[in-house]
């Protein structure tokens, strides 16, 4: 019988909603207010994300340090689908300006407002003049041919256009560009740790986590470090970084991302090189690698020769098999094979297969052979939860970055292999 995953998701069509992307771009930008031009209940998605993120960061003992901005909804109902929601949006904008006295109001459009054809940009322009404060609108409507990142990038461009100002440079300073879990997330935390170890100062994380007056001074940074990952998803961030370089002389450092050991090293050397800190960079790399070797010394007696299986079903935009294969090699695990799950379109499958073949000689299987392999494996490293009682380690969506990220993954595999519990179970890193 073919191995089943917990959920089936077809990545071919619209996968996400641009409204939450807009929200993320301003979520903690003090002084801003966000309006969802949507049915009331759409706001619950952002709230659910916020609650999950709040407790997830608490779970990592990294509590939030900023407060989220107010989020309102125009609360579209059936009558607005007939008469239009423009007046409702205008009324909500007036209310937001009166109640919160914000520095700006951002508007995120739902698919409903797109289907009924509200001219949100016109309403925004009119109210901007009336209220005398920036009303930021984007040409994205829920999932209608747009994704989360479209909303995120569109709002980011608006913020730069409205708030960034040319500034005299402050030496040794960096602007973090992107989200990846926010300032208290593991990605930004690790990047901050490594940059500070080089003696650099971070002026803030943009967008989403800078107030309007901070945005106005953000261009004092010498360089922008992109919090990027795999695939084309981060192309938008690269474009934004180029815009900052072109218009505000903030050098874009985005050739590499610290998403595996090799790239982390290249990334550190490139950042250190830009700031004339090559020697500090080399010393830092040596210290981090020594630390990693010490950890491996503890892990290897447990992990060496253990049989593992790798199950892949995630798009290459979100995942690079080479990173996990590097981890398998570091821990001297015995890779039984790689299973390609039934989540790929034929073209995607060919691409993933080529990537896997380039990185390992291990046999590649489809799901029909997978159950037998699962039965032999001590641990399955997987992008999808499997409906099979074998210990599984869920490979994270947001890439584990830098040396700390790699260590977290290595430690997670080590701990799972230390376990003597019988049966299945899924570990999230």
């Amino acid at each position, binding site marked *: 019988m073919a191995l089943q995953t917990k959920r089936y998701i077809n990545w071919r069509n619209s996968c996400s909603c641009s409204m939450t992307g807009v929200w993320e771009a301003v979520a903690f930008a003090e002084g801003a207010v966000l309006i969802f031009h949507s049915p009331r209940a759409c706001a619950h998605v952002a709230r659910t994300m*916020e609650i999950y993120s709040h407790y997830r960061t608490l779970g990592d003992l990294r509590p939030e340090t900023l407060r989220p901005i107010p989020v309102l909804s125009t609360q579209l109902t059936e009558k607005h689908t007939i008469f239009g929601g423009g007046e409702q949006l205008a009324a909500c904008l007036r*209310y937001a300006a009166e109640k919160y006295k914000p520095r700006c109001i951002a508007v995120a459009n739902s698919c409903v407002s797109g289907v009924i054809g509200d001219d949100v940009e016109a309403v925004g322009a009119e109210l901007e003049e009336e209220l005398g404060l920036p009303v930021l609108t984007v040409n994205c409507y829920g999932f209608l*041919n747009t994704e989360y990142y479209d909303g995120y990038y569109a709002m980011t461009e608006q913020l730069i256009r409205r708030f960034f100002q040319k500034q005299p440079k402050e030496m040794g300073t960096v602007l973090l560009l992107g989200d990846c879990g926010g300032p208290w997330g593991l990605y930004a935390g690790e990047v901050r740790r490594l940059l500070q170890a080089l003696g650099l100062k971070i002026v803030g994380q943009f967008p989403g986590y800078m107030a309007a007056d901070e945005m106005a001074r953000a261009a004092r940074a010498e360089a922008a470090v992109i919090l990027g990952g795999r695939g084309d998803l981060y192309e938008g961030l690269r474009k934004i970084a180029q815009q900052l370089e072109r218009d505000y002389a903030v050098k874009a450092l985005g050739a590499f991302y610290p998403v595996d050991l090799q790239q982390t090293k290249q990334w550190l050397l490139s950042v250190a090189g830009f700031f004339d800190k090559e020697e500090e960079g080399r010393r830092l790399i040596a210290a981090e690698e020594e630390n990693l070797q010490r950890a491996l010394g503890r892990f290897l007696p447990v992990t060496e020769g253990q049989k593992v299986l790798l199950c892949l079903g995630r798009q290459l935009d979100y995942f690079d098999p080479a990173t996990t294969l590097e981890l398998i090699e570091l821990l001297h695990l015995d890779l039984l094979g790689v299973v390609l799950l039934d989540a790929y379109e034929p073209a995607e499958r060919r691409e993933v297969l080529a990537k896997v073949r380039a990185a390992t000689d291990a046999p590649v299987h489809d799901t029909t052979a997978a159950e037998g392999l699962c039965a032999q494996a001590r641990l399955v490293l997987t992008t999808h939860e499997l409906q099979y009682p074998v210990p599984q380690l869920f490979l994270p969506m947001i890439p584990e970055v830098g040396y700390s990220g790699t260590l977290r993954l290595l430690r997670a595999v080590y701990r799972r292999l230390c376990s003597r519990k019988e049966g299945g179970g899924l570990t999230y890193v």
Partner: protein
Amino acid sequence: MSEKVPWSEVCRRPDTCALTGAAAFAAGIVGAKILVNGPLWCYFYALRYLERSEYHMAQRMQNSQPDGTSIVYGTEKCLVAALERLQKSGGPAELLFVENSCSVSLIGDDTEGIVGSLDLNCPFVTMDCGGLIGGFAEGWSRAAVRTLSKLSSAAPAPERKSCRPRLNLLGLTDFYFNGRADREELVRLLELAGYEVNCICGASTAEELRSIASADLNVVCHEELGLEAARYLNKRYGLPYISPGLPYGCRGSVAWLEKVHYALPCPHLERARAEAEETEGRLTVWGNELSSVWGELWFDKALVAAPGTTAHCVAQALRCEWADLGELAVLPRQALQNSYCDCADKSHSAGEEEAALQDLCSSAEGQCLLLLGSSNESMELRRAGLFDSAVCNIAHPVSDEVLLIGEPFMGLRGSAHMQQRLWNAYIRRTLACGGRAEENFRKNFR
């Protein structure tokens, strides 16, 4: 139509959309499969909600995943493909429930016709139920009426299993926090009193729904979910109904049973009364013992925030049976037709999250606060720096607690469970405050 709430309050509302509520109703039918005809994002968040109560929900809930083009040319192609996939996964469906999201509902696809033209070999229900019609309760309630209107027609009444008075429970769902345990306790109580539970609208088989009209009385449990179904069944079959709220606390449970008994007499009410008396006596003794160490179970301010009927009925039991309070405020997530709480100092309107939390947090310095709500509200308490509040979750979403054993909040067993949780929350809070006092003492006298 969904109630209008102040614009500014929306960001603090945990209520999901009607799509989730309707799916929760359908998911309560054994063997039913659900297809969400709408964006992946909406489907995924509805699925994630339902998975809190049924981990393998994805096996019987899938998505047509239309793209932007489908909104122009129609969703038929992706709908049919998804239905075929759904039919292939697992066994045949007892009922197929197809729900359109808000944007899909606007384009006017003939979903009923598309689904009906396929050879599905199972009954099906289709409906438009995105966020335009409201939140979880509106979706659940409309899905119940729609399904009953389709299933309950012309079905012959089954043989009565006994001569016991027979009733239906309307508006119970396993997809509320701890819903399954509460349902089981409620049925246990009714059976203890001598009733036969004919059908639980919200947790039953399709067959039981077909014979729903064979009961003597409908009892509405969560009013926001079940009242419309009761009205529908009353209009269509003349079935009488009552809406007595929910049984929390020992005395509250007996009072609830007495209301049902008044509408439809039961043979063994005294059995339930005897168990209530025994439970209350046991809890009083334990309360005395705990008080001797920790002092009285006292909270300066308490807020109960939950789905409408739960909020009212828990608040009533909290003040009248479980704890002593300085001030009590209630924040229901939906407006109700009836009031089930007459002892609150302040009753917020549905959706006044911001005001309710501000009230709770104002002048909170040195006060002992109690929140009976969800992680949605406790997150705000943390953000306000009120780390020493006593918190018990009684509603979704819950990210800071786990309940793995099926102990209810409702009924007699639930009364013991809730008092246990309240005492433990109070003791943990006292220990945290005591730890800080000890630290200060050491600092000052070092």
